[in-house]
């Protein structure tokens, strides 16, 4: 039974992705495009050369973190739709520190990254607190917090960080994650050291959840609050901690954008979608740190590769969104695939 589960846990996503691509191919055929060309363009767009690989990794980096942000909250039974806003405030804070202070890199960079995490954590704290103390549903608060983050950050960019400009100056190089060396390797892609931070964050989450008493408590609270209370855990505290850590992850994602990809923050006329994609990433990754990394990579590859499909094969990018959506459906429906597999195995015997 359990060994089966482990096996399935590996096989099923693969099958799902395959089925998704298959469906995508059919759609391409139906709408008169050549799937082979389409997918080879997708491949080129994602892995074609050093540059695209660099960009793919770059695009994956924040998705890992927002994925973790959603997954972590889910582990303690909370639904964090607020990653979007947490990303923005994290981005803002990181850039702010990157601009405001002068310090050697060993201090400046960690400080800026930390600032991002803290800001995100703060943004997670509010819904966490309201949930823990008043039982207000976190979904709705996090949605509201998203908008508040968006407008406040725009205002701060305009009237605090700049004199009414569209974007801030570039952050001090002592706070930058960008790496000449990596960029050199990848024909000036925007790949930056952030991906190490993202991987590290994933390890942290795995460790917290699987190996520490903190994770033990968080999961217990997620599964059964009564039993948690009975066993002497502080349910409210755990809910808040969970949201704060989740927010912290999302804040880091923002810091990646601010300190790595862009090196600044610009007025946003809408959301980044990093947070919303994070929901899909988390759940595709079965809310487990390792799974999240893989799911984020899948997203990064598909989205990065998508760029090549219009120029490379004349396939509109919207079609790629459709394909991604289908893949998600198939992964989500893994139950039926598992069922089919079991069926199949029974026949086999």
């Amino acid at each position, binding site marked *: 039974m359990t060994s089966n589960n482990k096996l399935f846990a590996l096989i099923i996503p693969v099958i799902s992705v395959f089925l998704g691509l298959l469906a995508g191919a059919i759609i391409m055929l139906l709408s008169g495009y050549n799937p082979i060309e389409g997918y080879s363009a997708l491949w080129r767009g994602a892995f074609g050369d050093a540059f695209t690989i660099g960009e793919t990794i770059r695009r994956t980096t924040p998705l890992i973190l927002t994925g973790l942000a959603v997954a972590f909250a889910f582990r303690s039974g909370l639904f964090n739709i607020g990653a979007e806003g947490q990303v923005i405030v994290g981005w803002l804070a990181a850039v702010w520190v990157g601009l405001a202070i002068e310090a050697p890199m060993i201090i400046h960079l960690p400080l800026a990254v930390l600032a991002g995490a803290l800001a995100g954590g703060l943004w997670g704290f509010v819904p966490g607190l309201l949930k823990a103390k008043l039982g207000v549903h976190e979904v*709705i608060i996090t*949605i509201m917090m998203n908008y508040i983050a968006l407008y*406040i950050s725009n205002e701060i960019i305009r009237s605090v960080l700049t004199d009414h400009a569209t974007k801030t100056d570039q952050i001090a190089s002592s706070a930058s994650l960008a790496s000449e060396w990596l960029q050199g390797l990848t024909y000036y892609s925007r790949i930056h050291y952030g991906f190490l931070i993202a991987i590290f964050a994933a390890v942290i989450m795995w460790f917290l959840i699987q190996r520490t008493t903190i994770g033990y408590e968080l999961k217990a609270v997620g599964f059964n609050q009564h039993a948690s209370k009975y066993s002497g855990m502080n349910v409210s505290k755990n809910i808040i901690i969970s949201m704060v850590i989740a927010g912290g992850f999302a804040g880091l994602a923002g810091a990646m954008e601010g300190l790595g990809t862009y090196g600044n923050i610009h007025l946003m006329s809408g959301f980044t979608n990093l947070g919303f994609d994070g929901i899909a990433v988390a759940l595709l990754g079965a809310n487990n740190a390792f799974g999240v990394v893989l799911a984020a990579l899948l997203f990064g590859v598909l989205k990065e590769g998508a760029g090549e499909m219009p120029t490379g094969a004349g396939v509109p990018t919207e079609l790629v969104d459709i394909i991604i959506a289908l893949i998600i459906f198939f992964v989500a429906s893994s139950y039926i695939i598992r069922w089919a597999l079991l069926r199949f195995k029974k026949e086999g015997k």
Partner: protein
Amino acid sequence: MIDLLQSIIPTVLFFSAPLILTALGGVFSERSGVVNIGLEGLMVMGAFVGIVFTLTFEDTLGSATPWIAIVVAAVIGGIFATIHAVASVSFNANQVVSGVAINMLALGVGVYLTKQWYGKGQTDMVDGFFRTDIPYLHKIPVIGPIFFERVYATSYVAIILAVIAWYVLYKTAFGLRLRSVGEHPMAADTNGISVTKIRYIAVILSGVLGGLGGSVFALTIVSNFSHSTIVGQGFMALAAVIFGKWHPLGAMGAALFFGFAQSLSIVGSSIPLLEGIPQVFLLIAPYVLTILALAGVIGRADAPKANGVPYIKGSR
């Protein structure tokens, strides 16, 4: 004061109507135990269909077009929602993932087809709905001018549907069964109620209402369809569902509250005593107000017990 109301109320009404409709969809779906964050996508579908239909038939069908258009949008929305139903009811998919996929799929399909059919990223403008006076009612002194003069009939369609939804959920056998499925599917099952059937109906209903919401939004506010026609309204509707504690009238109240807050934040800038305030505060006011309302007045809201839990026979 009266004329302040007179300037706010109509705005509230047109802003809230799409949210009310979509939120009602959310209520049906979640009351039956199927989480639906696909509302955004369902609205996109509705907006797309509503606009395309109107564009195609405006000349031939004349002023009836938008009405027919929203009905068609509702139907297509229902059909589109069956994807969510199949995934999350039949395949026991994780309902949140399925919802996310719905959102992506709707946008992809909508924009893709727009490009295929019109060769551009957004459609042309349509006339859509116009404000009218509600017959008889607008003659009522005081109330009349404020509530029934120069309003979109669709706003009242939304409000009436909310009342109907309440009646269905709380007065009819179907409603009782639907809620029982969302609270304790196994109990419903042992009483010979088909959990699957009920959940399908509920999710499809959410598609119908989401389609209505989206098309009403497009035909009363935006007048065309593009990738940025629906941006976050679906999530606001979801917020309204929870704000309203999964109750049709509650959801309506919440949607109206959002509309009121929004419109205040805009009218605010022309209210003398608010003039000094920096715009950012007015911008975030609606969202802060909502949080305060929830923290202060509304408080704890408990979702239907089985919400989000796939029902698999014979497992506890």
